[in-house]
């Protein structure tokens, strides 16, 4: 575990939030990813090593082309590294087949996307039930857990609404509930506030912070907005396919506190679109 040794000193000092003994959820060891576009080889990642421990809230930043999306796809088991090892929750997933990765995604990873990516013409409840359907959870448990997850993101009473009957913030909260519902080892959020106004963004970040704090859920957030990254407790910046910097957030923002001070727009029930 040379990686662990190499990375740990960078974020170890000074942060009380860090529990050094916490189990690693993500261990990337010299990950390379090369795409072949016709005759040209594009090196998207050039040796990324990284450890993320249980209960961490990590923001990944970087300009477009920096390799953060590729990292995101590999972390989410949507793609495989060309070289290097990826150990997710104690399991080497770097050389897994398509089906094995689908199972891993189902059991261990929750996704939240920029564009919400909910099934249209499908109720919030059914959207949240979907991951459990692929895990083979029985109907009664599915229903129960979906209701709980929707309640956890503050959407009780909206279970039967279809995405087009929900505001952007509400849709994203349904997506968060969906990502939670299989009790994943990791939630990956890809620009989750990219389509939201600032107040709604804070609301979504509040949910993430609360889930991270209360349930100890490991979160990885990809964003290009520095102020959104400050809700995390550690920021990793990518540049040219490598990690440029990896440091703890010094003045971490607290979304719950900020929400109290923000003017309340009570009409979230009205459609924003």
């Amino acid at each position, binding site marked *: 575990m040379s990686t662990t040794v190499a990375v740990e000193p960078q974020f170890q000092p000074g942060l009380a939030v860090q529990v050094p003994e916490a189990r690693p959820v993500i261990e990337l060891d010299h990950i390379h990813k090369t795409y072949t576009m016709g005759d040209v080889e594009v090196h998207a990642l050039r040796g990324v090593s990284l450890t993320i421990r249980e209960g961490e809230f990590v923001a990944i930043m970087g300009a477009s082309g920096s390799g953060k999306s590729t990292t995101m*796809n590999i972390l*989410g088991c*949507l*793609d495989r590294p060309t070289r290097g090892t990826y150990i997710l929750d104690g399991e080497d997933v770097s050389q897994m087949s*398509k*089906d094995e990765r*689908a*199972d891993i*995604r*189902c*059991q261990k990873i929750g*996704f939240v*996307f920029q564009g919400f*990516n*909910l*099934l*249209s*013409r*499908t109720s919030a409840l*059914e959207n949240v039930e*979907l*991951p459990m*359907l*692929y*895990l*083979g959870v029985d109907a009664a448990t599915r229903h129960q857990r979906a209701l709980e997850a929707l309640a956890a993101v503050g959407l009780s009473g909206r279970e039967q609404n279809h995405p087009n009957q929900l505001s952007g913030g509400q849709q994203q909260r349904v997506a968060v509930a*969906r990502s939670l519902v*299989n009790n994943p080892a990791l939630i990956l959020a890809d620009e989750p506030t990219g389509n939201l106004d600032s107040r709604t963004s804070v609301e979504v970040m509040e949910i993430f912070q609360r889930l991270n704090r209360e349930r100890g859920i490991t979160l990885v957030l990809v964003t290009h907005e520095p102020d959104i990254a400050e809700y995390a407790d550690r920021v990793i910046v990518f540049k040219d396919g490598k990690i440029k910097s990896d440091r703890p957030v010094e003045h971490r923002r607290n979304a719950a506190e900020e929400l109290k001070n923000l003017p309340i727009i009570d009409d979230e029930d009205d459609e924003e679109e």
Partner: protein
Amino acid sequence: MNLLMIIRVAFRALVRNKMRAALTMLGIIIGVAAVIAMVSIGQGASASVQAQIESIGTNLLFVSAGAQNVGGVRSGTGDTGTNTMTVDDLDAIKREVPSVSMVTPNVNARSQLVAGNMNWNTGVTGVSEQYPEIRKWPVASGSFFTDADVRTAARVIVIGQTLADNLYPGQDPIGQDIRVMNLPFRVVGVMLRKGQDPQGRDQDDVAFAPYTTVQKKILGRDRIQIAFVSAISQDATYTAQSQITDLLRQRHKLTASEPDDFTVRNMTDVAEAANETSKTMTILLACIAGVSLLVGGIGIMNIMLVSVTERTREIGIRMAIGARSSAVRSQFLIESIVLSLMGGAIGIVLGVALSLAIPAFLGWPTLVSMMAIIGSVLFSGAVGIFFGYYPARKAASLDPIEALRYE
């Protein structure tokens, strides 16, 4: 993820787009309904032809005097000018051919029948007492004449329903007098009503008398033009046919080079020819309808392909949150199978309803065929699998990253 879950997912996906699902099914509905209705019409026609032939008797043979050969086209004429067949020939057939159970001559005399102040022109047919049994045509009231009547050339007559209606309106004809060529006959029976034959001729406009009486008292000739022979069973008709031919050639002292001077025809052949015709018609109708089923199937493939493209993002979402390729493939395959089977089921209901309505509206006989129903179900299932497989495979082969990015 088990099959039941995938079926549920597929159903939900279909319910989300009811209009499209319904329109896709329409192709299969029309196809299956058309196949069932067409096959019903074909089978109905076949059954009614069959029933008519059955009513004549499939173990029946015609023996007619003379054999015409006009430019290679041969037929038994039964012509009045042909005097090659005698009662003795028929007696010999009855006596010497083991596969023959009954024989009746059939001599026809057209004449005016008079009863009281009513009269009616019809053919008086001279037959033996076995006629009702050979033709499977019983009497409705009274009785047929007996072999004693035949031996003594008694002046007794059995009339058809049309005669009974026209000569004795509102009366019981049994025991009444009737005059044929000014000779008094006694009505002993009335035949059961038979209705029209397939050519629309009234089969009840007949009268039967002992052939001896017709020959001696009406025609004054003892030659026989046509006879009906009943074989002991349907299987024995071919044996009977060749045995009768051999016997008559021998009796008529024909050498090997001489052609037959009589004709033996077999009802089984007639029945089979009719059967072939209606079978061909059924197959033809089913094929035409089958084309529409095929077109319906292609419609399903079309919609499924469009649907895969349109739902690329949905597929990406499903894969990202943990659906295996096989689950996506099964979902799309099951969607297409559900579409075609549901279409098939509705098509069956519609097809059966049409088949039942056709006799009422068009007057054609129909027979709903279980085979057509089972065939349609299997075929529409096969259509679903066949035309759903390619789009399903296409959906399953999508890359989740690309699919999620799809706008």
